[in-house]
Every structure is written in structure tokens, then in C-alpha cells.
């Protein structure tokens, strides 16, 4: 009984995000002209998974009480790189995928090195590295174009057994391969500990630096997986500043919706995934209700504003006014 309550308290944010997503998705599909069909689910999951990967990347960094404003740009950079490399025969494609993921890891490691060993503030440091990554993306693809191994792309954005969207399966695989081992490892616990109280973690001999460095590096990897998926989804590479920026912004929104505390040490990537899926579904609600697409940015902005304001309810629980000032 006690264990069950602890688990519930720990997962409250994730469960809330899951609940929001389910409600929104039911509203979405029940009003969709085609209804709840495999096609609708496939399209929705392909769009949602892109943001889910970037949101997972953001989660890893946010858990350490940092922020990565370059995730969108790593996403764009790896998209451009994949449009050059992930082509040709099976072996060439495999090497291309490895190179793209390696680039993501490298970008994340650079962020981590600058923030942790260079001791710069994550906000400014990642804005600056984001500019560099975007510059490289622009060098690779001054104009949208390129191609991708279409067999692989169709396999990963299509359906398994005619029903299950392959993108969701990939997302699940990434969660099992990256997130679950990380969050259960010493490094993952160090990342959580560093986010919740860096001083206490340091005093207890927790390897906070290695934990934070691993979090930033894996964030780069996850953003690269997202970029790879974007290439599979669109068949092209495009160095679009607005889209990279939007993904950074939406990843923060998804993380907040997913119950991850921006002060660090609380939340999980699973919550952020449901936050991302919920955010995408809310954004698409306008289309099924036949609104003018012009209203979409405003609608998404208002949702974001409401979502972040919900956190203010915690103020009612504050007994001592000094707790206002964290």
C-alpha cells in the first residue's frame, strides 16, 4: 500500500500528461472526418514522434536543472546531414545513420563540455552553440534538398503488420535502449541528484559532473534521432531557422506539460513524451474543427501560456512566504 502511494506521487506528472493526451486524442479522433483509423493514427504518431524525441532530449538536460536551447538546431543540423549521408546501399545507409547519430552525440558533448567544464550558464552557452550548429546546417544545405534511402524511410514511417505505426515502435525502442538504462544507472541518478541539489550531491560524493555530461551528450543523441526521423518523414534536408527555433520552444512546452520540473531533479522522459504527443494533438485540434490555420500559432501559444500558468497552483500550498523565492 505504501509503495503504491510513493510510486503514484513520483509519477503524478507523467500520469497527468498521459491523461491529457488520452482525452485530447479522443476528442481529436472522434471529430476527425476519417475517424479512428490506422491512417489517422499513423499520421498523428509520425508528427508526434518527431517532437517526442526532441522533448526527450530536452528532458535529460532539464533534469540536471539546466536547459538546452540548441536542441532544435541539433535537430536541424542532423536533418541536413542525414539528407547527404543516409543514401545508397544498405551498408552506406548504415554508416550514414551511425555518422548522423555520432554528430548528435558530438554536438551534445560540446554543449556539455562548455557548460560543465567551461562553467558557463546553460542558457547563453546553448544559444551560442545553437547558432554554430545552425551555421553548419546552412553550410550543408543552403537550399532545401537532398534525398534519403526511401526503403528505410518508408519502413520507419509506415505501419507494422498494417496496424501499429512503426514510428511508435521506434520511439519505444529508443526509450528502452537510451532512457531506461540511463535513468537506472549511477550516471542517471547523478543527473537527478545534481538537479535536485547540486551541493548535497557533491557533498555525498555523487559524480555530478559525469552525470551532467552524460545527460547533455545523450540529449544530443536524442535530438539527432529526431533529426534523422524528420529526414525519413520529409525525404529532404532543410536548414530552416524558424523550424529549429519552434522545435526548441515546443520541446520546452512538452517538458512542462509532461510534468518535468524546470528547477531540475523531478520528472521523467516518459512524461515528456506524453507531453509532446498531447501538445501536438492540441495543435492539430484546430484542423479537425475546421478553423482557419492562421489561428494555430495563437492557439498553441495560449495553450502553452495556460500550461505554464498551471504550475502557479503550487503557490497555494506555500505556508511561508519566503518559499516564493527559490
Amino acid at each position, binding site marked *: 500500500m505504501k509503495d503504491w502511494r510513493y510510486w503514484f506521487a513520483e509519477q503524478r506528472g507523467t500520469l497527468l500528461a498521459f491523461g491529457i493526451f488520452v482525452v485530447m486524442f479522443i476528442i481529436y479522433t472522434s471529430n476527425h472526418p476519417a475517424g479512428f483509423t490506422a491512417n489517422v493514427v499513423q499520421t498523428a504518431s509520425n508528427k508526434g514522434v518527431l517532437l517526442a524525441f526532441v522533448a526527450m532530449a530536452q528532458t535529460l538536460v532539464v533534469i540536471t536543472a539546466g*536547459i538546452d536551447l540548441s536542441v532544435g538546431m541539433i535537430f536541424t543540423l542532423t536533418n541536413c546531414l542525414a539528407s547527404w549521408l543516409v543514401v545508397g546501399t544498405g551498408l552506406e545507409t548504415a554508416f550514414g545513420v551511425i555518422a548522423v547519430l555520432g554528430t548528435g552525440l558530438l554536438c551534445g558533448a560540446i554543449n556539455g563540455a*562548455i557548460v560543465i567544464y*567551461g*562553467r*558557463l*550558464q546553460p*542558457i*547563453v*552557452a546553448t*544559444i*551560442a*552553440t*545553437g*547558432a*554554430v550548429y*545552425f*551555421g*553548419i*546546417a*546552412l*553550410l550543408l544545405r*543552403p537550399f532545401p534538398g537532398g534525398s534519403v534511402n526511401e526503403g528505410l524511410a518508408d519502413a520507419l514511417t509506415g505501419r507494422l503488420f498494417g496496424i501499429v505505426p512503426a514510428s511508435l515502435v521506434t520511439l519505444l525502442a529508443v526509450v528502452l535502449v537510451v532512457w531506461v538504462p540511463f535513468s537506472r544507472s549511477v550516471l542517471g541518478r547523478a543527473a537527478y541528484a545534481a538537479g535536485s541539489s*547540486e551541493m548535497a550531491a*557533491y557533498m555525498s560524493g555523487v559524480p555530478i559532473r559525469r552525470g551532467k555530461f552524460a545527460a547533455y551528450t545523450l540529449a544530443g543523441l536524442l535530438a539527432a534521432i529526431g533529426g534523422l526521423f524528420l529526414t525519413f518523414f520529409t525525404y529532404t534536408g532543410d536548414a530552416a*531557422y*524558424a523550424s529549429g*527555433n519552434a522545435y526548441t*520552444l515546443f520541446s*520546452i*512546452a512538452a517538458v*512542462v506539460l509532461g510534468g518535468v520540473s*524546470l*528547477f531540475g531533479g523531478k520528472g521523467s522522459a516518459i512524461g515528456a513524451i506524453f507531453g509532446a504527443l498531447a501538445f501536438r494533438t492540441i495543435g492539430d485540434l484546430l484542423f479537425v474543427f475546421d478553423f482557419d490555420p*492562421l*489561428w*494555430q*500559432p*495563437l*492557439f*498553441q*501559444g*495560449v495553450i*502553452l*501560456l495556460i500550461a*505554464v*500558468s498551471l*504550475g*502557479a497552483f503550487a*503557490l497555494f500550498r506555500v505556508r511561508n*512566504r*519566503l518559499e*516564493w*523565492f*527559490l
Partner: protein
Amino acid sequence: MSETTVSGLAGRMPKFLRRADPAVLTAFACIVLLLFLGSLYSRSFLSPEYLLQQLKVASFLGVIATGMMLVILLGQIDLSVPWSVAAGAMMACAAAAYGPVGVALAIPFGIFCGVLIGVVNGIGVAYLRIPSMIITLATNAVAQGLMVVYTGGFSPQDSATGAMRYLATGFAVPGVPNAVLIWALIGAAMVFVLTRTGFGRTVYGIGNRERAAYLSGIDTRRVVMIAFAVSGGLSAFGGVLLAGYASKAAQSMGDAYLLPSIAAVVLGGTSILGGRGSYLGTVAGVILITLLQSILSVMQMPEAGRQIIYGVVIVAMLLLYGRAPASR
């Protein structure tokens, strides 16, 4: 009465420290170095016309960075700059379409819209205790949404009023562009507020430790709210000037000002954690960023190379003097 002695002491201390701030000196040294490197490339980099032109371009960024600095001094950040700039510009131009009254009220109305965005930010940060990075991103998205709905997704057709053009491109004093004059006035006001008024001291106090400022009997929430409102207003005013300069507003005109305004403030030695920094440093940062952008574009560096150099320079300079103290 005890408050005056305490704040008087606090007012004197940073001023003394500021005199010898190595960050400001480094920033000015970098400006000289940039000019020297530029002059090796072309003589015209040292001509008064070129320098005055750069100062004029810098003044738009200067006005926006002034608001950003006030917020950063509090230990917060304002990421709603892009669409505060665009909203200020678009609303001022929109007001101009409503007859002579609209033309007269164009500039105040544009600034008012920016203040409104800032007040929403301020309420979120000060009263709802939402992290500033998040609430300002959200208001930025809402402002963008409102502007997209208003303009229908295209650049608006309304053009800037004569007064806006005069402020941005005219010459009230021969030889000195009005934009530079406006930046100087706003800068002087900011220096006065930061160093000579209780409000300014409170800003530094909150940046150092909001809890302590609150316990000293300061209504810290009101101060934070005012600072965000001022930042929003100054961003919008920057947008109004930019619209006057280009004679119309454009969809993404503010995007190019978020990173530079933060970079200018931080390169000028203001701590991103708040509580430390001088306006002189911000001036140096603004000029440094503008010169860097200008030299890169004169050398016909493509956009990609400019972004890369820009990011690398910011990281390198911060590694030189913007590092946090070694842990323990």
C-alpha cells in the same frame, strides 16, 4: 532611515567595483582589436562616416538591450523580445492607418503594446512565480499568434509614420543621427535609474538575493513587474524605430534581436545570474556585436559562416571572463 544608509552603501560598492571591471575593459579592448583587424582589410573601417553609420545601427540594438539588461540584472531573462519588437512595430504602423489621431498616437500605441506584453511577463514571473524563461517564451508565442492572426500571415501593408521615420533616420542635431541621440537619452536615463534611485539599488539587491531584499521590506514583486514592463516597452520602442528605419514592419523583424541583445548584455560583463553589471559594459557589448556583424558582412561572409563565427566568438569571450566560480 536605516534603509537609506544600507542602500547608500550598496549603491557605492558596485560603483567602485565597476570602475575596475575587467569584463568591460576586455570588451572595449575587443572593440579596438576588431577595428584594427577591420582596418587591415580596408581603410574605410576607420572613416568617421562608417563609424557613425555603425553607431546608428547599434542604437536599435542598444535600446532593446537596455531593457534586456534591466531584466538580466534581476537574475531573470526576457525571451519575448522577438515578437515584442515585431508587435511594437506592427501596432505602431497599424495605428497610423487610422487617420490623423492614429498617426499622432502611433508611437505611444506601439510602446503600449510592448508594455502590455511585459506586464503579462511580469505578472507571471513576480506573482505566479513561473520561471521567466518559460513565461516569456509563452507570451512570445501568444504575441506571435496575435500578430499572425492580425496580419493574415503576410507582412502588413501599413507603412511607418513620418514621426517614426524622423526618429530613426532624421538629424535633429547636425551630424548626429536621431537614433543615436535616442539611445544616448535612454542610456542616460538607465544609468540614472540604476545608480541614483532606490529602484535601481533594489534591482541589484533582488538580483543578488531576492529573499534578502524581500526581508528588507522591499516589495520585490512590484519591482520585478515594473522591470519586465520596461523591458517590453523598450523592445517595442526598438521595433518602432526599426519600422521607421525600414519604413514598414515585417513578420520576423525581431528574430535577429534576441540572441544579440542577450549576448551584448552578457559580453558587457553583466552576470546572467543577476545582481552584477554596469550599463557601460552593455554599451561596449552592443557596439562589439554590431561591429562584428558589420565586419563579417562587409567581408561578404555568407550567412552560415556568420552564424558560426558569431557563436564561436560569444563562447570564446564568455570563456575568457564570463565563467562561474569554480565549485567550492
